[in-house]
């Protein structure tokens, strides 16, 4: 169904070379508007580098990336106005209040924002006047999402957004990402949690050694595997330990 829409992002044969080694080696994919697209892969597969080339942070050594009709390599400044970026470990300058952080990022785009509205969206209203250094990991992730959306971007990049978060915070973040998508923002995220990818992503690309080795919807990828005669060794449990954990500790956010 997604292939019907005109792609908002198109990567063609992307290459990034470090020390004569192609850490990203001819990566191609396209993402439709309103999609949540996942890039999976073990550490060092080239996920983050692929993301960073599209985020204008790394020069593109080969191939092209086009976002909303704009070539990333040709006009990075224009790209910056239409993308929002959530780095792997968000950090903010100390002694800054949450409201000020929002103001600051809005100002970076030459805009004035209503900080409270953005903080409400990510459940950080009560923390509005705290300093950022007093936030928990999950709260920092949420604040970071708010800062990435102040300028109403069309494409939102998240790099391993739930690494290091507790189950409650992860679930909350998944909801947030879905809300962002529901507002029409296209989401491209990396992760190495398969449950996360299966639950959130409309389509996933699996990368290894700088190459995409599979690209489809999670359901189709599973179907393909089963059709090859794959069988799980043990019977699938009706519940997982995580289900037990959530059942015992609840879904409410702890931070």
């Amino acid at each position, binding site marked *: 169904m997604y292939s019907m829409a005109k792609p908002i992002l198109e990567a063609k044969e992307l290459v990034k070379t470090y020390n004569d080694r192609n850490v990203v080696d001819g990566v191609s994919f396209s993402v439709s508007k309103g999609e949540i697209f996942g890039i999976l892969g073990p550490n060092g597969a080239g996920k983050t580098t692929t993301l960073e080339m599209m985020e*204008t942070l790394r020069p593109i050594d080969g191939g092209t990336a086009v976002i909303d009709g704009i070539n990333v390599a040709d006009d990075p400044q224009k790209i*910056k106005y239409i993308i929002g*970026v959530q780095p792997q470990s968000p950090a903010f300058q100390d*002694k800054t209040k949450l409201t000020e952080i929002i103001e*600051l990022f809005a*100002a970076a785009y*030459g805009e004035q924002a209503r900080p409270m509205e953005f903080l409400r969206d990510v459940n950080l209203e009560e923390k509005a006047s705290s300093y950022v250094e007093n936030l928990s990991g999950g709260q920092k992730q949420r604040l970071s999402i708010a800062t990435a959306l102040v300028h109403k971007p069309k494409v939102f990049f998240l790099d391993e957004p739930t690494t290091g978060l507790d189950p409650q915070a992860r679930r909350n973040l998944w909801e947030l990402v879905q809300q962002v998508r529901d507002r029409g923002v296209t989401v491209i995220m990396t992760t190495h949690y398969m449950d996360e990818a299966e639950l959130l992503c409309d389509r996933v690309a699996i990368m290894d050694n700088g190459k995409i080795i599979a690209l489809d919807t999670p359901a189709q990828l599973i179907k393909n595997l089963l059709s090859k005669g794959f069988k799980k060794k043990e019977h699938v449990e009706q519940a997982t330990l995580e289900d037990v954990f959530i059942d015992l500790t609840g879904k409410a956010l702890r931070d």
Partner: protein
Amino acid sequence: MHSGLIIIAVIIVLLLARFGFKAVRRKQGKPELERVVSLPAGKLSPWRRKLLTVVVFSRLNTRRFFRDRLALFFGILFPLIFLAVFGAIFGKGTNNVSFSVGLINESHSRYAQQFVDQGESSGVLKVDKTVSDLSGAETKMARGQLDAAIVIPSSFGELKGKLPSGQIKVYYTENSAQAGQTLVSVIQAQFQSFNEKFVNIPTPFSVVGSQLTKKSLTEFDYTFSGLLGFSIVGLGIFGPINVFPELKKQGILRRLHTTPIRVWQYFVSTMISQAIIGLISLAIMFAVAISVFHLKVVGNYIEIAIFLIFSIIMILGIGLAIGGWAKNERQAAPLGNIIVFPMLFLSGTFFPRYAMPELLQKVTTYLPLTPVIDGARLLTTEGQHLTQIGPQLGLMAIWTVIIYIIAFRVFRWE
């Protein structure tokens, strides 16, 4: 006593800086949130949007400084400590000669007492009360704590015929020979006036000293402008070279780089906040120097402020270049030290450049910090105007251009 006053002044200032701001904000009731009006993008012209970035960044930078105790310490208190130390050394002024002496008074005559009183009240003699005999004085002289020991023998002031007489002995060591000999002539002169009261002999040759009214610079005047330079270096160079590597390490600059903010916007906002912080810091130094160390400012304060802002911006460029180039603190710290410390010493921060060999003076004239310190002195204590310090301003302008070209070229977001 001076240091006590300074500490009180510093505490007041810091309290004001920390809590004064808070009080003001509390008065405004619910802050920022409601004040910020949401303007749809595109309503502002592209240039006003770029300036908005600068304004917001510099405002928050400044605020952050006053919330950060460590930054306050290094930016404001640290230069004051130096001011206190150097002020205590040079602030007394160099006009008054005084000697620290041990006084062994074995005489009970009123003449002996009169001599001691006169010496002490004129400030010439600083008597160490802990010294009671010659051997004690010798020990202290050997340590360099005393200039000389004065022994008034018990026979001093006894009547010889109709007139009192006596001989004072001044002891000094090899190290304090100069001070000792000077002290001898000072006492000689004092006795001369004593003697004239007893026997009126006309003196054929005499000498009278007369002070010219033209104001001359004290050593403290030189020291103060040097300390202004030191403070500017502290804020402008040590600030960025400590902060930037940290911002890069945490990926904060990298995250900013994904937004459309340009390097010049980031630099200009840093300049503005540094200029504000610097002016406050330097104003406090002026206040302390004037009230505690009797600095006489004869220049125009507005001209001084303009000059200092220019200085802060130029020196900040060095910090931006080093901090902006360095990938981490291991690169920033050594490069910073190599550039900063020679400059501090060679530009006359801690001691006047006129004390240097001539060749060195010529070379160091062209260092970036030198025109800052010279200019500050010319404006502040010599009462010159901006129009009269063209050479300094010109040199600073050239350096500013060079420094900022380098800073823009080498800046890295990560």
